[in-house]
């Protein structure tokens, strides 16, 4: 019997002698079909992105306008000089001192 270590190398050496005579050229129409498929796939991915990003941009702009319209009063108030608020109105300590005295 062979030693176990020799069996696989002998078999592999014999297998390496096998010549693969099969044609390695692309089958007729393979490249054409594949090129069309690859380009179509890429185009679909791009157009999907384009469509979604444009929609998202439009929606974001619309939401921004609605926000400004509904909160117009608040926004306008920010830029007005607002000195009408009394500093003691919301001071609980002052209120307690007032009650005690």
């Amino acid at each position: 019997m062979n030693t176990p270590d020799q069996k696989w190398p002998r078999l592999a050496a014999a297998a390496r002698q096998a010549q693969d005579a099969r044609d390695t050229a692309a089958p007729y129409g393979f490249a054409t079909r594949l090129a069309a498929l690859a380009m179509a796939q890429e185009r679909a991915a791009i157009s999907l992105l384009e469509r979604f990003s444009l929609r998202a941009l439009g929606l974001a702009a619309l939401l921004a306008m609605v926000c400004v319209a509904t909160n117009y009063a608040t926004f306008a108030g920010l830029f007005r000089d607002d000195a009408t608020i009394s500093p003691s109105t919301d001071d609980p300590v002052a209120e307690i001192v007032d009650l005690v005295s």
Partner: protein
Amino acid sequence: MAEDESFDLAGCLERVRRRDQAAARALVDHLYPLVIRIVRAHLPRRVAEEDLAQDIFLKMFTRLEQYKGAVPFPHWVSRIAVTTCIDQLRAQKRRPEFRWADLSENEADVLDAVMTNENDVEAGDALAAHELVHKLLDQLKPDDRLVIQLLDLEQKTIAEISSLTGWSPSLVKVRAFRARRKLQKLFQELEQKERP
């Protein structure tokens, strides 16, 4: 052909990036021999070689923007081909049992010759030896199978395998060791079974 030195690969890639379909066709035709050799060497059972080649080319086109030219383009494509094949092999979880009864007469003769010192494997039995080797390789884990095939059948170096698979040289050596030990065990099991 991938060996065709007159082919302007850089120019062709540039045109493919500009979405030139004729250039894409030329690129597929140029690389097909390289890809189909890898596919045929690592083709899992019940998978059509043309389907696997198509998957590889589609991956190549999808990832083309990621190719920065750090390695030659055919090498980059080879890596895609090898990893696609290994993914397919991993997907086939069930491995068929290896039995004398499933071997052809020529394959059984080759196995006999290998397991005894009496006869050398005849040159005419190379094809049977090739078939037998693949039946034995089917018994291995996909990663181990890939390593032993690249190492012992395609006679690539550890560094080349490491570069093709992305695995470290130590991992490649571990997988080769594990694969050879499993093959040794298979031969021992076959010795214990009588040839019918």
